[in-house]
Every structure is written in structure tokens, then in C-alpha cells.
């Protein structure tokens, strides 16, 4: 009754959400401490004394979020390119089993749902950074960095998906259409 895909997406979206949220809060505190900028915590959130302080802390905080995003996307990309069950090398498989890290080998369904979630975060962050850059609330180079990351990651996922579709197509062509020797239900006994 319930959509399995939606449940999977929610499941995969929780950890990135918590990571990004935590990175935002921690980075605001750390950057403010490092730069010696004072702030107040009120019901409206973090309040800075001047727009210049806000610009600085906000930019470096978003940079911190981008680093976390790159780490998450990098993890998914490595899984998609190297540990993808459809095209993993036998030597890599045996090595992963020997170090008991076989959980890294995942199928397309697992990898692409996770990839879709991280990509969604990447686009949302890109939109927010663009709006902030236009309003002079963040340095412009942060927006360009985010734009570059989003484009690069999207291209990598597109190439991987194309490869996957091609492999699926080839494997279908390899199967013989002759059903002469196929077992029919109830025929074995």
C-alpha cells in the first residue's frame, strides 16, 4: 500500500539531513570562535552584531556544509563507480569480503536512492547560496564553488546511470529468446 521508494528515500534522507544540520550549527560556533566574532542566541537564532560579521560567518559556515556535502556525495560516487554490484571487479569483491566490508557492495536501487537524496541537497544548497549571493549575504566565490560541485556531481551520476543502462541492455541481448529448454511449471516431477 505504501510506496517502497518513498519509504526508502525518507530512510536515506535522515542521515544527510542530520549531518548537514549539525555541520551548520557546529560551523557557526567554530567559525565565530576562530574569528573572534561575538553572537547572541535568541528565539530568532544566531544574532550577529554587524552585517560584515554575518557575511563572514555565513560564508564559511556554508563552505563547511559544502565540504560535508562533498564527503557524502563522494561516498555515494565511490560506491557507484567502484563497489556497484553490477560491475564490481572480482578481486575487489574478494578483498572486501576478506576485510568484512561487503556491505559496501550495493545494487543500483540502494545507490541511486542515496545519490538522489544527496543531489537534492546539493541543488537546494545551490539555490539558497545563489539567493544569498545576490543579496550580498554570502561571498560570490562560495556560490561558484557550489555551482561547480553540483555540475560535476550531476555529470558523474549521469555517466554512471548511462553505463548502467547500457549494461542492462547488453545483458538482455545476451539472453536467448529460445524457450525450448526452459522448465515449465509442474514439469519437473
Amino acid at each position, binding site marked *: 500500500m505504501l*510506496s517502497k521508494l518513498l519509504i526508502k528515500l525518507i530512510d536515506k534522507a535522515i542521515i544527510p539531513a542530520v549531518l548537514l544540520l549539525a555541520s*551548520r550549527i557546529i560551523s557557526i560556533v567554530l567559525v565565530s570562535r576562530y574569528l573572534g566574532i561575538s553572537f547572541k542566541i535568541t528565539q530568532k537564532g544566531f544574532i550577529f552584531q554587524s552585517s560584515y560579521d554575518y557575511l563572514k560567518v555565513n560564508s564559511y559556515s556554508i563552505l563547511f556544509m559544502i565540504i560535508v556535502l562533498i564527503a557524502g556525495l563522494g561516498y555515494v560516487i565511490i560506491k557507484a563507480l567502484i563497489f556497484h554490484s553490477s560491475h564490481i571487479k572480482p578481486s575487489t569483491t574478494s578483498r572486501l569480503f576478506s576485510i568484512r566490508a561487503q556491505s559496501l557492495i550495493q545494487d543500483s536501487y540502494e545507490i541511486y536512492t542515496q545519490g538522489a537524496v544527496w543531489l537534492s*541537497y546539493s541543488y537546494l544548497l545551490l539555490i*539558497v547560496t545563489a539567493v544569498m549571493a545576490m543579496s550580498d549575504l554570502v561571498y560570490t566565490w562560495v556560490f561558484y564553488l557550489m555551482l561547480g560541485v553540483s555540475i560535476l556531481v550531476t555529470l558523474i551520476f549521469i555517466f554512471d546511470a548511462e553505463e548502467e543502462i547500457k549494461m542492462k541492455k547488453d545483458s538482455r541481448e545476451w539472453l536467448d529468446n529460445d524457450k525450448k529448454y526452459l522448465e515449465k511449471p509442474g514439469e519437473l516431477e
Partner: protein
Amino acid sequence: MKKIAKVGLNGILLVIFLAVLILPIGFMGTMNYEESGNVLSAQDTNEEPTMKTINDPEADVPDEVEEFILKMEREYYQKQFENTSEEMGNGVEEGEKDKQQNTEENETDDKNTEDAEELKTEEKIAK
């Protein structure tokens, strides 16, 4: 009926998914800065005099600062004095020039009148 329930439940799942997606991005707006509220208006007045002289017994001016201020004052008055004396000097020179011009003009006038008189006497003699 079953279909409506299915769509409704999946709709709720979709809303939950979108909420989870927007949560960290929405949290980015919880940062703000204070607008500087110390803008002076016409109603803002300072009743106490802000200027204090060196002779003020309440003003605790260090000796070095006092010396420096006095030196600056001395230089300022000296410059003022030099400027005024220059202006005065220029004024005297201009007056002298005017006087010279006037005497020259008078001399030329006298010459002209003498010439005219000479001409008149010559004419009379000729007649």
C-alpha cells in the same frame, strides 16, 4: 476508497520526505544580524558641552598632550599672523601702485593742457 487511502498515505510520505529535505536548508535562515540602531536624528541633543579647555580643572589632560596642544596653537596663531601680515603688505604695495598711476595720469593731463595752450598761442600769433 482503497485508492484514495493509498494516495493519501503516499502524499503524507512525500510531505515527510520533502520536510526532511528542507529541514537543514530551512535552518540556514536562523542566522541574522542586528541593524545598527544608533542613528542620530534632529531630536537627539547633547546638553552637556563636549568641548573642554585645557584650563578646565576637571579635565585630566596629561602634560604631554597639553604641551602638544599648546605647540599646535602657537603654530596656528603664527600662521594666522603671517597670513594677515602678508595681506597687509600686499595692500600697501597696491596703494603705492595706485598712487604712481594717479601721478602719471596727472602728468599726462598737464602735458595735454600745455600742448593745447601752446597751439592756441601759435594760432593767435599766426593771425
